[in-house]
């Protein structure tokens, strides 16, 4: 998840550097959506792992 972390950190950095309110809002929300993306990736991977390693399916 390092790349996701990089996306979030970059978004937050760009938020502090943005002059226009609209751009600050955009990067702030981008950071939040990155958190949601990370959660969804984790959930999907966990479900996939659970199904693959379910001994009842072997």
């Amino acid at each position: 998840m390092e790349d996701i972390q990089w996306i979030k950190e970059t978004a937050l950095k760009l938020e502090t550097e943005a002059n226009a309110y609209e751009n600050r809002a955009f990067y702030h929300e981008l950071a939040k959506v990155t958190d949601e993306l990370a959660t969804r990736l984790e959930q999907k991977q966990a479900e996939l792992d659970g199904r693959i390693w379910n001994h009842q399916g072997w």
Partner: protein
Amino acid sequence: MKTLVIVSHPQIDESGTQNFLKASFPQSDEVAWHELSADFKVDEERQLLLDYQRIIFQFPLYWYSMPALFKKWVDEVFDGDFVFAGETPLANKELGLVVSTGIAQKQFQAGNGEAFTISEMLRPFEMMANKLGMNYLVPLMIYQFEYYTNEQKQGLVVEYQQYLMLKKFTFDDKLQWFIEELNQQEQTLLAESLAAKKVELENLSWQVQVMREDDGEG
């Protein structure tokens, strides 16, 4: 897809909410801000409706409905001869609402102050859309804007822009919107990284779906 936002507020210059939304309006040729004036011309209004695919009614909630001028506009522009003529000109277009209220969201539920949900209160608009053959969108509600924190306002900027511009409102579509906006801002590396994670999520979702179907879970 072109979006027309029809705005009506009796004191629009004094409205903090409407001024905020106007400042947040997307810089795009695909969306238009149209403030109603008392001397609107019915034929011109109808032509506008024909020219756009997504129609947004934007107004403050006045006694659980729209302000008087907007209602007058609906009564005159949506005359039966127009909306039910021939090929029903508004059919298959979309109707969305951006509605603000000074009442807290939690009041709009059974057993609380307003007793009914917002969905129930806005039902006449949904009925109108159904009658006209339009696709009714989930309304974008703004509750007590005057108490919004800066973070909530930032969220509203993006939510409002997406409401006007996205064809669909899935997480995938919202991600794609961010990617396209990043490309427009020439943040190419960030856009590519986000796009790669989006593809990763799509692949994982597909794999999970296949395994669910194999397990008989559809």
